[in-house]
């Protein structure tokens, strides 16, 4: 490793290589903290060309690597598993081109999500995908994970907004997939790379589609006695032909935590609260608000508040966006699960979550994207209580099994990573997984790009190393 580190320094500069044990600790996990592993060396290239040079060196030595952006991922996608080298794109921060007339922007992989919208706001444009971590997470990570966010119900997720990427293959070769032009004949390899969790190579640049900032927005908060009533309202809103920009649900435990943290006057005895945002042309919005309010009334809403101005709107969003932070008040540790059910099955999955909580003597809070059935149960625990950690893992698995049984998916936006690799056979047949394995080999024949992620075949040999990786437990 010392020899490798010095060769890496010659490629990216002395300040671009981390190999002191105490400095490496920062990189032992991402937002998924249940498993930890320290890389042997971290390299931080400053440009796509340096990524390419680093990968050529690793290719010549047949060394495996794991890509990382800001480390905000939630499924352990950046956990180094039999990959000694971590390649961080966080120093690649250039916004290379803004094309206002065509609504395109070209950014390097380390550009933070929020910076994209900041860079184009003056032109009345924005970048639509808005994961909760948007002040920190990078576009490279968003592309790898196909990130979503509250506002993707109407606008779609990352894959709907990426027109092209430059991909550094494990060989070090840089290849352009897609471009600023909307279509090009050929297989949609761009679609394959988005959401591939860094297993096909490292995205170094992305050409993103920008959307017009909406002319007007209406945000309302609806308070219900029960999650069933709130769920009925969700289905009713969709059935009324309204596609809100966002449609978020918070259950009682979350509402209590948020209220304790921010004191914005939420009723702490409510069963569930819906946050609904409508956007678009000003002229069409008020009729839509009326329809949403009518649906809520029909579903037995206790109270509806419509934000009267931007200040009130920001306050309503604050309670949603900071919900995860508020959870810190409830327990020393928490694990956010991510699953999907058809949106009509939200009441069923909430019941399954409650049952799992009872069975495993856990507290589970729920704050999630109800509009697209993307649940986020937050399992509270104390990592010093090893039995509780085991129960958290068991409950998480049961919740995901319930999602699949209800016709849903293992993950809506956090990815498979290491966390859910073993569950993939619940969703996909051996034939499906074989096709994915073959596709991976086209890009990465030696299996050096983020090994032991997504595809479960690899898990078998990984689990034997569990003691090292699960040190945190």
């Amino acid at each position: 490793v010392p020899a490798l580190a010095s060769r890496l320094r010659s490629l990216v500069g002395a300040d671009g290589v981390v190999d002191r044990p105490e400095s490496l600790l920062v990189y032992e996990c991402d937002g998924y903290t249940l498993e930890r592993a320290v890389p042997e060396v971290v390299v931080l290239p400053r440009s796509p060309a340096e990524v390419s040079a680093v990968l050529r060196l690793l290719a010549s030595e047949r060394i495996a690597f794991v890509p990382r952006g800001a480390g905000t991922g939630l499924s352990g996608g950046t956990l180094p598993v039999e990959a000694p080298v971590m390649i961080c794109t966080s120093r690649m921060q250039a916004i290379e081109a803004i094309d206002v007339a065509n609504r395109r922007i070209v950014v390097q992989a380390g550009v933070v999500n929020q910076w994209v919208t900041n860079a184009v706001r003056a032109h009345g444009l924005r970048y639509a995908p808005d994961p909760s971590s948007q002040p920190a997470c990078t576009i490279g990570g968003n592309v790898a994970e196909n990130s979503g966010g509250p506002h993707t119900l109407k606008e779609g997720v990352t894959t709907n907004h990426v027109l092209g990427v430059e991909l550094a293959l494990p060989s070090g070769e840089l290849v352009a997939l897609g471009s600023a032009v909307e279509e090009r004949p050929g297989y949609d390899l761009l679609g394959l790379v988005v959401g591939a969790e860094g297993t096909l190579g490292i995205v170094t640049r992305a050409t993103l589609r920008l959307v017009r900032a909406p002319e007007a927005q209406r945000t309302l908060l609806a308070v219900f006695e029960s999650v069933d009533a709130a769920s009925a309202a969700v289905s009713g809103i969709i059935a009324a032909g309204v596609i809100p920009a966002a449609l978020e649900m918070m259950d009682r435990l979350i509402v209590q935590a948020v209220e304790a943290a921010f004191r914005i006057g939420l009723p702490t005895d409510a069963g569930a609260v819906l946050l609904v945002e409508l956007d678009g042309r000003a002229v069409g919005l008020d009729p839509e608000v009326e329809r949403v309010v009518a649906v809520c009334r029909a579903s037995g809403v206790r109270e509806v508040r419509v934000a009267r101005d931007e200040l009130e709107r920001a306050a309503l969003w604050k309670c949603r966006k900071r919900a995860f932070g508020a959870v810190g008040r409830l327990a020393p540790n928490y694990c956010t699960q991510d699953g999907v059910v058809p949106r009509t099955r939200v009441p069923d999955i909430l019941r399954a979550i409650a049952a799992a909580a009872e069975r495993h003597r856990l507290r589970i809070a729920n704050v999630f994207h109800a509009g697209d059935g993307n649940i986020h149960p937050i399992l509270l625990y104390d990592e010093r209580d090893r039995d509780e950690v085991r129960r958290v893992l068991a409950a998480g698995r049961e919740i995901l099994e319930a999602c699949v049984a209800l016709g849903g998916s293992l993950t809506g936006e956090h990815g498979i990573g290491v966390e859910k690799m073993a569950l993939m056979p619940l969703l996909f047949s051996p034939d499906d997984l074989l096709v994915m394995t073959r596709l991976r080999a086209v890009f990465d024949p030696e299996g050096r790009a983020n090994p032991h992620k997504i595809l479960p075949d690899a898990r078998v040999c990984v689990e034997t190393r569990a003691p090292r990786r699960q040190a945190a437990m």
Partner: protein
Amino acid sequence: VTDLAAIVGVSHVTPGGSADAVDGRVPSWVVHPGNAAEVQSCVRAAGAEGLALVARGRGTHLAIGAPPTRLDLVVALDRLSRVVCHEAADMTVTVEAGCPLDALAEVLARAGQWLPLDPPRPHATTVGGLVAADLSGPLRFSQGRVRDLLIGIRTVGADGALVSGGGRVVKNVAGYDLPKLHVGALGTLGIVVEATFKLRPRPPWERAVVIACRSAEAAGEAALLAGDLGPAWLELAGPGGLPEGPGEGAAVVVGAAGIAEEVADAQARAVDLARASGLGALAVDDGAALRARFAAFATEPAAAVLRAAMLPTEVGAFVASVHRTGGPVRCLAHAASGVVRIAVQAAEPVAGLVARLRPPLEECGGSLVVERAPPALKAVLDVWGGPGPAFPLMRGVKQALDPAGLFAPGRFVGGL
């Protein structure tokens, strides 16, 4: 043949005739499997004999693509035509590949929903064809393309395995996005037997405004301004691009869809925009009918139809340059998507036009595809153009999923 007959029944295997030809190549047999399992068996039987096959829905869009290098068997999916599951409250639909789009639309309309993809000839276009040929129409500007709406897929692979990707939920990042890989792949990676889409509420109102412009360049400018209005669709017609007008000039057509208040407002804005630029504007009440006519442009009679892709800002100047090169052509563009179709009325100028227009487009990341042309013309043309820097990976994908070249050999980019 006896193998095939044993699989699907004797009445569902017929000898290929000229009506079954794909770009002039006549298959020996046409087989009509009745379900996905029979498709699997047919593929296994074909694979065992080393036959080359092309999957077919209604055959309406088979003109897209290069002529197959080999063709023994057409697998007709007309018997796989069920709407498997329309979950109206979830706004998703799972449908078999052979289902025609008009039949699907009828089912969805009962719940006030639609699959907002509007290719030409929806009555004669199947779901499988929609996916395999990546068909779209004017609505793509606001509603996206197949890749944006397809959330799950079932295909039969070269080894006869049933391979699924995606699922039935609208948000899903589990595993590689296999559905997208089959979109526009022209059936060269497998036979699509079932697809799941997310749906949208069908807007109750759809109207349009036609803005008359003096030239294609002026229309390009007007289209960029109109794009800021956030229309449902935005078409640009070059001189003579529409049969009944706009004559020597060009036109921009702004589509508005939604509730009555929104549509009236959008129409008024488009008219205001035109007047502010000193242009004439005509409000059209039946926006959906007008849009369907624009969608039909791609399959209207012509010696050849070319499809060019570029940045939206280049559309006006491109259309103008196509007309300046002379010859009897008509142009219609999905202006805000940067897609221009050129209907060439006579066969002679096609090769020259392709040779002249393609290189500058490809230099800027764009493309020029010969979307429709008779086999004789295709024989002397490069239908797809340069496959681009990602071609080695594409070839790798083809080899990984169809190593023996069972599926539509030679039909796709770079001879895949």
